[in-house]
């Protein structure tokens, strides 16, 4: 993977650089920031995260499983009490609820890892420890023909350092 990485000290410079890169049709960008910033989210106009689907599916599976366990157990070893149902859904709602939360949460965490491609064994090309410290970074995927243009654009917008990476 070839491209250019630029490190910025200021948030507004980073935002302007991203805007300009997108105008110039550099669409394969990765932006690094020490903390989530809504300014970056807006300028990147990324789609909503699909973590919510994992949360929903996990929650539904959890609640179904949570009702099924006690109903199956009651049916397997019936405790017959006159006038009472063998499987009483009201107390089983507690187990259903707890397993909804348990499996829904674990599925949400799994969804985050899967979508963010975590865990990764090596940090990707271009990552710099300064991005967890205080600086912002823009990685632009560009072949040798367009890399100089991207590098120039990053410098124009105040990048502290620009490097070609492969």
């Amino acid at each position: 993977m070839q491209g250019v990485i630029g490190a910025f000290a200021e948030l507004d410079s980073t935002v302007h650089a991203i805007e300009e890169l997108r105008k110039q049709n550099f669409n394969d960008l990765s932006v690094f920031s020490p903390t989530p910033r809504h300014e970056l989210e807006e300028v990147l106009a990324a789609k909503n995260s699909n973590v919510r689907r994992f949360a929903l599916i996990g929650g539904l599976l959890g609640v179904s499983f949570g009702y099924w366990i006690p109903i199956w157990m009651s049916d397997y070893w019936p405790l017959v009490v006159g006038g009472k149902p063998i499987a009483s859904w009201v107390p089983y709602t507690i187990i259903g609820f707890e397993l909804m939360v348990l499996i829904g949460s674990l599925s949400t965490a799994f969804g985050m890892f899967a979508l963010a491609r975590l865990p990764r064994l090596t940090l990707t090309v271009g990552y710099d420890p300064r991005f967890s410290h205080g600086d912002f970074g823009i990685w632009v995927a560009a072949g040798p023909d367009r890399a100089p243009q991207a590098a120039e654009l990053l410098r124009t917008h105040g990048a502290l350092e620009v490097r070609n990476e492969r």
Partner: protein
Amino acid sequence: MATMAPPRPDKEHLRGPNVATASNRLPGVKDYAQVDREILRTLQPTLVWFVLLGVSVLLVVLGGATWAYQIYEGTGVAGYRGPVFWGVYIITFVFWIGIGHAGTLISAILYLFRAGFRTTIYRVAEAMTVFAVMTAGIFPILHLGRPWKFFWLIPYPNWRLLWPNPKSPLEWDVFAILTYLTVSATFFYIGLIPDIAVLRDRETNPVRKRIFAALALGWRNSDTEWRHFTRAYLFLAAFATPLVLSVHSVVSFDFAMALTPGWHTTIFPPYFVAGAIFSGIGMVFTIVIPLRKFLKLQHYVTINDLDAAAKLCLFTSTVVGLAYLTEFYVAWLSGNKFEQEFFWNRVFGQWAWAAWIMLICNVVLPLSLWSQKMRRNTTWLFILSIFINIGMWFERFVIIVASLSHEFEPWKWSSYRPTWVDDAILIGSFGWFFMWFLLFMRQFPVIAISEVKEILQPRMRHPHDSSHDLDALTIDPTLTMGDD
């Protein structure tokens, strides 16, 4: 003719110690570099830390050895005397579960409510939750005559073809507590990942760097990671919010589902949840106030944050106080003489000393928090937090022991006295809790680095005109640091 008051100097009235608000301002923290420098500095071990860790480990050894003795001799060495077969272990189980609740309240519920003051205290509170639930989980096992059979509570296919009874509140507890432990630990770890990445990038020791690199899972602060992370964090908070309310409700069902006087009441779930949050906030103060002082973090955990948490403490105290009064009112209104007799015995009879410790610590002393001056006095908050911890332990003592020792038949009425085994295991549980907390605070940041950075203004090449911006007013940092 009345004289007019002199005009106030422009904006001067806004510079004083402001009352705690939902937004969080840290005037003593200037930039990202300062955050990294000051928070990572707290990871250096000190002599006091070693001493405290040593004491905690000794207490764990004491508790562990006592448990071994109890397993050898049988649970008779604890203070169980019929009909009081729930004693210090169940009291302490409920106590520690309650302690955990404030952590989830601060980290999840206040996150959903966008309460800014949580930012600097939530990491401590969340760690407290995980370690408190780890401590609480031991107590039902301690209470078993054959603790090595504890896994029988978990439904799993077995050759005996036996399954636990899913209609039993004790079985609901298994699901609730295990879910709570798993979800809190997951929430805690996911929130830690960006901070572990900071540690990985700053660490110079190669072994520790490798450990942090493995724990950070290759996190690199990219926009994709943040996008999924913030969503996942939101959903986890949304799952944890009803969970925290359900867990102590389920714990309260252990009592409310029984016909015992003083237990069989529908107010137990909200009463227990409020009490749990109240006791947890007490423990947050007990930990955070010395921590901010000794780690010199007063400009992070500001007096405004403590003030806001103290208001929450006051609110939950009033809910708990109302629940106490409601119990008496319901006993009177019911016309049930067992219930009336029981409550009279609780407050004016055999257990009056314990009930009054509970009432004074949980209802009377927290009334001081109506005063802003007291809410902003860290010494008083710390002392009060100790009283709250004591009061909430005694609340569970009063609920459990007072009821079991004074049921329906007078010939069964009895007393209860914990033995040294109960005491040693109770003290050991504090050692166990603080041992984990002390180990945690030297390996991981006690204040969430990435969240503190989120509330700071990032560097801008062209800062916008902020002369009309309330947040941009220069506030003297010393005014937000408190008296310690």
